């Protein structure tokens, strides 16, 4: 019953599918990000409290969202690989980690740039930023653990396990950081982002979110191809595929 699934997840199939999907993801990402940026930066009205500074949200929020999404993808792919022994899962996890880490960094820096005009300081131990920082540390842990093993197969499995442990930990960190912040700051810090938004501001944001997801899909596919090649170097299909 599972055979179709294993065939779907077979390395050569994944390698070809990823190649076929990449341009589509890129095309959609280019259109939506392009629209989101132009509409968000030029046409959306300034926020009545934050003025034009709120426009940072158009890159901050999608990056923050993507940082969590990539981590979840990584942990999920690792879990699939560990439990059902589907090796492509390790390749997906390995491909997702550096992308996720880079967007975590963007979320942190843009959050801090946004914080400067809002709080008067680049870093105010805002709970969201703090848990984002801890997420970055988790990414570093997973990436360095994978690289520390000489045998890539063991590195893959160890990193997958750490990813799963981390994904359980993320909500705990998030919750405890909020609890800690409310204890110390009494809610005086203005939180980044707001629940209610005018639709003219919302559309470009949604477009950016969607565009970043598609971009993630595209880059993941590209990296995935490299990871699959590295893992399957000795197999006949790779030899056929790379024949000069």
């Amino acid at each position: 019953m599972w055979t179709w699934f294993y065939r779907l997840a077979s390395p050569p199939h994944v390698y070809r599918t990823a190649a076929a999907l990449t341009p589509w993801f890129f095309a959609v990402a280019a259109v939506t990000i392009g629209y989101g940026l132009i509409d968000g930066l030029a046409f959306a009205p300034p926020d009545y409290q934050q003025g034009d500074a709120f426009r940072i949200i158009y890159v901050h929020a999608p990056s923050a969202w993507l940082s969590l999404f990539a981590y979840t993808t990584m942990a999920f792919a690792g879990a699939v690989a560990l439990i059902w022994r589907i090796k492509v899962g390790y390749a997906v996890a390995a491909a997702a980690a550096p992308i996720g880490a880079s967007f975590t960094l963007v979320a942190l820096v843009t959050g801090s740039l946004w914080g400067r005009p809002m709080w008067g300081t680049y870093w105010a131990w805002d709970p969201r930023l703090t848990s984002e920082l801890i997420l970055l540390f988790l990414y570093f842990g997973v990436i360095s653990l994978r690289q520390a093993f000489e045998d890539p197969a063991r590195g893959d499995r160890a990193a997958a396990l750490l990813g799963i442990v981390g994904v359980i930990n993320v909500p705990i960190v998030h919750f405890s950081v909020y609890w800690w912040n409310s204890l110390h700051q009494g809610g005086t810090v203005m939180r980044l982002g707001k629940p209610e938004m005018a639709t003219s501001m919302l559309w470009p944001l949604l477009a950016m979110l969607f565009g970043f997801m598609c971009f993630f899909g595209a880059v993941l596919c590209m990296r995935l191809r490299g990871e699959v090649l590295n893992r399957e170097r000795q197999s006949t299909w790779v030899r056929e595929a790379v024949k000069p």
Partner: protein
Amino acid sequence: MQEATDPIDAPRASSLDLSADKIHVWRGDRHVLRGAGFAVKAGELLHVAGPNGTGKTTLLRVVCGLLRPEQGAVSWCGRPIDAIRAEYQAAMAYASHEAALKSDLSALENLRYSVGLKRRVGDHELRDTLGRTGVAACADLPARVLSAGQRRRVAMARVLAMRAPLWLLDEPFTNLDSKGTALMCRMLEAHLDGGGLALVVAHHALALARPIRRLELGE
């Protein structure tokens, strides 16, 4: 020296058998084991031989279940060892190429805390077993002060005391003098006579008074 065979704690039968089929192991880009396989029955010894780096130890680690092969499976009495982990481990005594002793514990304590996890065993019996491998005098010394040969004999005593029908030994003759080598051979003979099985990794020939099956790796 007394050489009575130990009773083996297992369904005493000639039905015991261990087999491995088409074992493939990769280490990174290195294809260490390429389809190794064997079958051993009760009373038989398999000598795993081959030059360095041909995967002898790797095969032994696969057989004892520490290393999961990429392809192929190891079966104990017809069932894959992954499915009967606890039962298989209870029936097996493994001696790695190092003596695997805690240097801060005495020889006796070392045995107590490793054999004791497999079966209920008293210190008296363990001292006896240490005597049979010729290291009774070392029982209360910390393993730190023992010579390499003495440590090997303590490790031999541990294998004996486990009373397991299956012995998996990695280079058991290392550091042994000629007397120790002879003792080890007699122990193996007695074990096989009692219906036991043994897998021995060694890079030189075994001097046993019986036909030995050989698995040559790296050919």
